[in-house]
């Protein structure tokens, strides 16, 4: 066998191994998610833990999500005004801002900010519990770690993300309103009227569906990476990074899929 063919073979072997590994981790993730969801229908449901998590995911994310929405809405209004001026369409500012914020930027930027905050802290917390044998201790005390740690986080994130996104949407539109009225000389009442005219129920539905899915991704990636971390402090660090990066990518991918497939046809 000459050298060239051998390198070719190696190349295919590597691709093959990589594919198998990728499929295997998707399988593991799916089984993990399935187990967490199955816990939903089996008591106990650890209500207190769900409320704790709702507080820590939702309430404490309000400032960062609110600021993100405010700045983005404001910048967006300015950009559309400048861009729109090129074809004399300054009037569309209110409409484009509300649609862009509600359908896309509110849930996506909110999701990314919460992922940065929450996926990382979940991975760090569960990862530390793993490497200090607290997860083993739970098991020994006859408490299912997935049910006790993961399911409440998933439930809380799926409930809280739509609420956060609702707030983000309102603040984002408000950011646009402030720029439009204070800098661009728009009439406030008129701006709000146009905003409400443009906004459709399907925009809000799309926003809420996205937010709930992103919430699921945020908690799932945080918990999965945390609970599977190994190898001391360095392992926890790696789990934290992986949680955030994978949550980001999955949120953007899910956003694309939901936008195109689920709400692509809605007028």
């Amino acid at each position, binding site marked *: 066998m000459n050298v060239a063919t051998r390198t070719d073979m190696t190349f295919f072997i590597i691709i093959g191994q990589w594919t198998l590994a990728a499929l295997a981790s998707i399988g593991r993730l799916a089984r993990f998610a399935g187990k967490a969801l199955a816990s939903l229908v089996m008591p106990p449901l650890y209500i207190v833990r769900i409320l704790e998590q709702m507080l820590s995911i939702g309430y404490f994310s309000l400032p960062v999500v609110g600021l993100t929405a405010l700045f983005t809405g404001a910048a967006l209004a300015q950009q559309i005004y400048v861009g729109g001026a090129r074809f004399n369409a300054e009037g569309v500012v209110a409409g484009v801002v509300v649609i862009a914020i509600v359908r896309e930027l509110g849930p996506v930027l909110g999701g990314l900010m919460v992922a940065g905050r929450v996926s990382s802290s979940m991975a760090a917390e569960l990862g530390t519990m793993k490497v200090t*044998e*607290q997860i083993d201790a739970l098991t*020994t005390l006859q408490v299912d770690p997935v049910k006790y740690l993961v399911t409440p986080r998933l439930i809380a994130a799926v409930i809280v993300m739509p609420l956060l996104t609702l707030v983000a949407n309102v603040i984002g539109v408000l950011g646009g309103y402030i720029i439009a009225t204070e800098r661009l000389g728009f009439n406030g009442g008129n701006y709000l009227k146009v905003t409400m005219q443009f906004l459709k129920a399907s925009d809000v539905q799309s926003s809420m569906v996205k937010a709930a899915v992103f919430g699921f991704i945020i908690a799932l990636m945080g918990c999965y990476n945390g609970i599977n971390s190994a190898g001391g402090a360095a392992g926890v660090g790696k789990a934290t990074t992986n949680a955030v990066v994978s949550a980001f990518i999955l949120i953007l991918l899910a956003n694309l899929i939901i936008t195109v497939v689920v709400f692509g046809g809605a007028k």
Partner: protein
Amino acid sequence: MTPKIDMQDVRKAFGTKQVLDGVNLTVAAGESLVIIGGSGTGKSVTIKCILGLIKPDSGEVKVDGESLIGLNEAGFRRVRKNFGMLFQGGALFDSLPVWRNVAFGLMQGQGMAAKPAREIAIENLQRVGLSPDVADLKPSELSGGMQKRVGLARAIAARPQVIFFDEPTTGLDPIMADVINELISFQVKDLGCTAVTITHDMSSVRKIADRVAMLYRGKIVWNGPRADIDHSGNAYVEQFVKGLAEGPIQMDVRRG
């Protein structure tokens, strides 16, 4: 009589490292077994195989004659109801106050209400020499030895039939170590528990063991009554008991 715990030819490798290489071990009901052996020989892994926290690659593990191999989650939960475990590093839940740690199995596992569970927790803290004042502290506010004792209180709080102690006296002063030894003896002699203890502490071995097993390179190389450890006729045990650097046990120490 069926032994309480029965391990036959248990093997476990992590990657290429063969940690357990055919462990055979039985523990009779009401007996106190102590496992000794060098650091990293697989003592903790052995215990975790019995608890179902680590799945052996091959071999048989039985509790009360029931095989744990291939048991489902519900089956393991049932078996673990009779188990208590002190982890080597304590493994306390650092988000919960001390008393909730001790009462965790009672409240979450058995659904006991907070008030009686707290009373039992404080009672158990006192048995390991901790005052009720520590009940509301977080584990991170305790010293290492105190954390160990909280772990011990948690292991015995639900009155399990079988208790595993992974280095119960490491990090304790000699007086407190003796208090803990007494406590372990009490669990076995007065409450009729079965105990499996891992320790490096020879005074602890002499105090609590009915029987001693020595693990070396993934196998039980010697196993006999406590009275025999000083004339075991086994070179490994002799070296270990006397704490000698020279002998058949080669520690992986680089000599300069």
